[in-house]
């Protein structure tokens, strides 16, 4: 009885942005640096209200440029740190993220993706997939990228992203979108204080007599050294593959596999229900880690399904990773809307039916 009450109390109705912000405090984030931008300002606002009361540091920077470099400094000094922004602000952070990746500093970055390019729109989008998963700034590097699809995951993935960032000494990005940030859902918040602080012997906290000085830098002027650092980074990205996460929905008997993440994955879940009423055997693979990408899992369906359909809120970005995984062994189609428009489950189903029609025509013509 008491336990049930406890659970009810913990299950709150919250906006995605606020759930994420509260989770950050519970995950032991010691300092937050950010700059306002819609549709994620609630994160900065929530933390401005709550962090001072709960012993954390929050600072509204003069720009995203300054914010990401404060993150560099504070992370280099050993603190658990986080920033958040939306697309244009994340673009401004790219130089800093490249430095952070090179200097191998852990931090959490949140992108509540809005429609672009340019100043764009404040409505939800997945147009930043390339930027998020391919590095984003200059040089050969990757962020660890997690894509939540619910308010619950907005909270949970804060813990996961920080754990991964600290384990691999690499920046981790939560790639959400304006809808996930703004919508309200029931959420059970993770327990405060459950994430331990790892030892950071490399941090610049002041050099005691007995140890060599610690240096945080991304400058390796000799090409031999710079190559070595690059090889180290690539080795880390290979090890990261162990952390691949994805979810399968109705794939046991699926003849068509949709691949979608975040909000698009939720839309596809509805499409599955609609399709199955019509006898179309649709399934869904939802990548949870966008980097590392679940390439083996995606490829494993090539022998089971007739074709793939990648559903995204962009012109076709993740489809490139799906195609690389499938490697030409099955057709891969795309459906997406851009500029802040959200596809309906019915639209996605129409696309499936349209492909089925052209497929059957081409199948008869090729005699397959």
């Amino acid at each position: 009885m008491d336990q049930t009450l406890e659970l009810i109390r913990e299950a709150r109705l919250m906006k995605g942005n606020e759930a994420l912000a509260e989770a950050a405090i519970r995950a032991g984030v010691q300092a937050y640096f950010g700059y306002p931008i819609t549709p994620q300002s609630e994160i900065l606002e929530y933390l401005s209200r709550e962090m001072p009361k709960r012993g954390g540091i929050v600072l509204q920077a003069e720009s995203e440029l300054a914010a990401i470099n404060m993150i560099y400094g504070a992370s280099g000094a050993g603190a658990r740190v986080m920033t958040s922004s939306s697309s244009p602000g994340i673009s401004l952070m790219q130089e800093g993220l490249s430095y952070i990746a090179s200097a191998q500093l852990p931090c959490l970055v949140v992108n509540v993706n809005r429609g672009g390019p340019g100043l764009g729109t404040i409505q939800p989008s997945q147009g930043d997939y390339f930027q998020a998963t391919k590095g984003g700034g200059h040089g050969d590097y990757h962020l660890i990228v997690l894509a939540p699809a619910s308010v619950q995951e907005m909270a949970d993935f804060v813990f996961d992203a920080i754990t991964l960032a600290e384990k691999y000494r690499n920046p981790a990005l939560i790639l959400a979108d304006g809808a996930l940030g703004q919508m309200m859902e029931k959420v059970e918040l993770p327990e405060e204080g459950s994430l331990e602080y790892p030892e950071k012997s490399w941090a610049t906290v002041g050099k005691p007599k007995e140890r060599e000085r610690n240096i945080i830098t991304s400058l390796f002027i000799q090409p031999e050294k710079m190559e070595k650092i690059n090889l180290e980074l690539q080795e880390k990205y290979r090890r990261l593959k162990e952390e691949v996460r994805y979810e399968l929905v109705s794939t046991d008997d699926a003849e068509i596999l949709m691949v979608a993440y975040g909000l698009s994955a939720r839309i596809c879940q509805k499409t599955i229900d609609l399709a199955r009423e019509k006898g179309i055997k649709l399934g869904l693979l939802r990548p949870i880690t966008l980097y590392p990408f679940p390439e083996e899992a995606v490829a494993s369906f090539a022998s089971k399904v007739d074709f793939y359909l990648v559903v995204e809120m962009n012109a076709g970005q993740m489809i490139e990773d799906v195609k690389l995984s499938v490697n030409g062994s099955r057709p891969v189609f795309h459906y997406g809307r851009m500029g802040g428009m959200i596809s309906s489950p019915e639209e996605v189903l129409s696309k499936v039916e349209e492909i089925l029609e052209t497929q059957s025509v081409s199948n008869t013509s090729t005699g397959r």
Partner: protein
Amino acid sequence: MQINDSIEGLELVYQRPATLTDTPFHYCPGCGHGVAHKLLMEVVEEMGIQENTIGVAPVGCSVFAYHYMNIDMQEAAHGRASAVATGIKRVLPDKFVFSYQGDGDLAAIGTAETIHTVNRGENILIVFINNGIYGMTGGQMAPTTLIGQITSTSPYGRDEKLIGYPLKITDMIAILPGAFYVTRQSVNTAGNVRKLKKAFQKSFEFQKLNKGTCFIEVVSNCPSGWGMTPVEANKWMEENMFPYYPLGDLKVPRTEKEKGSNNA
């Protein structure tokens, strides 16, 4: 014969501070960076704060400051040293934190960070080496380049009608309420070297008070970038830089003023 044999029986009156590594400076002959490094590290040693000091190196000729300064250090992106220093100081408020920046770094690409760091009154020391030129990239025009001064990107001399006036950013900094101590010094003479050292000492003392940012401009030279010998460069600096960037205190804490102290 070893150096130790040759100095046997002699009294040691001067040596490299333990806060400097034994890596030889890469700076050009006559450049002010080396002197400024040494003074800063001497002060850190004399105050016994090596274990509690964290420095931030910029992008510029002093990008490798951490090769020489034997303390924990971070290397910042071009212009962002004061934001990096802010991040460090906010999570380690009891430590001494400084950034060390050139004029391109601090007064061009990093202007916003510089102004807002001081405006927040971050309790750090900002050391600003003003040599009127971009040294590291080979002598291009800086925001502080004087009118008429020839550089590789102002080959006909800086023309204020095209590119504006040399920026007196230290004067702008001094009017900000977040600035606690603002001074302009140089390293061209033994006397000025002593004054700069005193300014460093005061800044670290002030940092303990948590009253705001200390900002020290060092008007310096760039013999290579200016195309002069070290002696010519110092003379040119005295005759041209000092009149436009006059040495002296721009802002001293009230208690200092009451004591009538003037470091200039």
